[in-house]
């Protein structure tokens, strides 16, 4: 085959390959969203901001008010319910959601015996793994968005929305505040995407989805515990979760991007290393089930 023939083949093949990948990703996402347990999980994620907002609304206002958490500011602006809910759920519920999704991704298929059928589709294993990973990232984005959006809606209903007072005391229009909330959502999704890379590796290693879910939950929880021990401060910059609370930094004026930048770098490192490990294992794995 001459060079020009090859080039022609590549250009001919590309649309169909891209199209096939998209169809696969779409069917993958339909699977994720369609599962009953995932829908129930989304309801739990959405319940937290509602519960918190109602509790704040009907508890007696403390005199002096205030406190170092976003929820203490909730009564002044509903957008802080969304931020407070993100702070609460990023500690356990959102990582748990990623753990469930990544357990289902490969290990779940292997457990059901559907993985070998999936591999008969004329799609390269690498591409299949990338699509599985992409569906996990989209799943994480959906989870974070549901938390933020529910918080925003319930906060808006109970406390109203208006110009947002930033942590540095400046006030910005609500639209800008919402844009910053969007940035926070994207940043947390990036962090969860790195956790999903760990999840993908575990999912490739085992055929038991439950085992993968527990492993990922243990990893994220253990990181939070290690992060809270001051004597281990040398380890903290290496922990994935260490920079997650920095999403609050977009609510300073001017935005404080140093911690967020470092958090993104750490997340990228986790994605590359653990995604690479998952890819290396999946490429040579004997799929028998």
């Amino acid at each position: 085959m001459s060079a020009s023939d090859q080039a022609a083949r590549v250009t001919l093949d590309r649309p169909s390959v891209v199209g096939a990948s998209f169809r696969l990703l779409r069917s993958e996402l339909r699977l994720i969203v369609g599962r009953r347990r995932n829908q129930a999980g989304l309801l739990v994620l959405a319940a937290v901001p509602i519960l918190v907002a109602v509790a704040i609304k009907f508890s007696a206002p403390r005199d002096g008010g205030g406190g170092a958490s976003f929820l203490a500011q909730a009564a002044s602006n509903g957008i802080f319910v969304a931020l407070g809910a993100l702070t609460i759920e990023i500690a356990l519920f959102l990582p748990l959601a990623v753990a469930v999704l990544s357990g289902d991704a490969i290990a779940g298929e292997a457990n059901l015996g559907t993985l070998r059928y999936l591999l008969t589709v004329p799609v390269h294993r690498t591409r299949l793994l990338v699509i599985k990973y992409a569906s996990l990232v989209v799943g994480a984005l959906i989870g974070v968005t549901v938390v933020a959006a529910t918080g925003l809606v319930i906060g808006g209903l109970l406390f109203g929305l208006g110009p947002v007072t930033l942590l540095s005391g400046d006030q910005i229009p609500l639209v800008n505040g919402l844009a910053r909330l969007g940035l926070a959502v994207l940043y947390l999704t990036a962090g969860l995407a790195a956790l999903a890379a760990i999840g993908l590796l575990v999912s490739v290693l085992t055929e038991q989805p439950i085992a993968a879910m527990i492993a990922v939950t243990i990893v994220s929880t253990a990181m939070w515990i290690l992060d809270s021990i001051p004597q281990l401060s040398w380890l903290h910059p290496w922990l994935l979760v260490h920079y997650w609370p920095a999403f609050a930094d977009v609510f300073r004026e001017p935005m404080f991007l140093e911690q967020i930048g470092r958090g993104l770098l750490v997340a990228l490192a986790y994605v590359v290393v653990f995604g690479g490990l998952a890819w290396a294992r999946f490429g040579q794995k004997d799929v028998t089930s």
Partner: protein
Amino acid sequence: MSIFDRRPRLRWTVPAAAGALVVAGALVGTVGVSADAGLPARTPQELLVALQTAEPTPLSGTVEATTDLGLPELPGMGGPHAATGPTSLISGSNTLRVWSDGPERGRVAMIGSSDEYDIVRNGDDVWTWSSADRAADHYVLPAADHAAGLDEAAAGMTLPSTPQEAADLVLASLDESTDVATSGVGSVAGRPVYELILTPRQADTRVARVAIAVDAETSVPLRVQVFSTQMADPAVEIGFTSVDFSQPDAALFEFAPPPGATVTEHSSADMAKDSAAAEGSGPGADAKPTVVGTGWSQVVIIALPADAMAGLANGEQDDTAAQAMALLQSLPETSGPWGSGRVVDGTLGSVILTDDGRVAIGAVGPETLGAALAAQ
């Protein structure tokens, strides 16, 4: 067919290489570029002069302040849910954002995990803002005396929050009891610096040495480390992690309290009255502090007014007094030829509070304090 399909085991080299790259990158990031050999050597005296005569440079940057004074935990302070404020600097690690535009315009923002404490100065106006309390305080400096007024306004700032303030504090106390040397060049916040090392000549002080990193280009101090004789890591370290010498946005220095905030106005007359009241009720009025020793091993002894101690002991006070008493009771007891009392044994100094109402404080160990008390 790629090579990874023919030889699947080769695939492991990809994550291994990525991991190695991450570790290598992180190491380069923390160790930093090796010291710039192109810098001309400078004597300690030249550095001192450069530090003290440096023009105030507009700058913005991020400061990391780590403090380990070995103090007992104070009730109601620290903890993850405490509001960020000036007292947070007393222990642990804090991140501050600093903007400065000449001596009269500056802003320091202490970053908490989900709150912030700001001090904004624009000419005669000084604002402090606590996002956790939603409280803004406005101070108007007396026009005549800017510097002193700022000190008054920032009275809550018990510790220096920028490398410049820390360096000024140290330089102000330089005398013949200190050996000044330079350890050559290094790198702070990615910029080449000269290191100035101040070593106390007296043996009984707990301060082992103070290292000041001076920016080679602007002579702005970029990092101050205070080493204790008790531990290897610096007891106090305040330094830029990133710094930029371009003009900060002027809007940063104009603070307007947001709607809904509790605003407290402090006029200059009020401030003068407050400080006079503080002097009247303080120990200064009837008992002058006694100073024993010189230089770094100086011990200051203050006699507390008799009723202060009695009031504490009776316990018929508000919560603050009860807390103070509880704290006092939790301190280890000590005794010597001077009597008996309680001791705070810190990394950079110590305090003895005697049962007969004297307080001895110094950058020395408790033994030296005891000797000074006995000599009084």
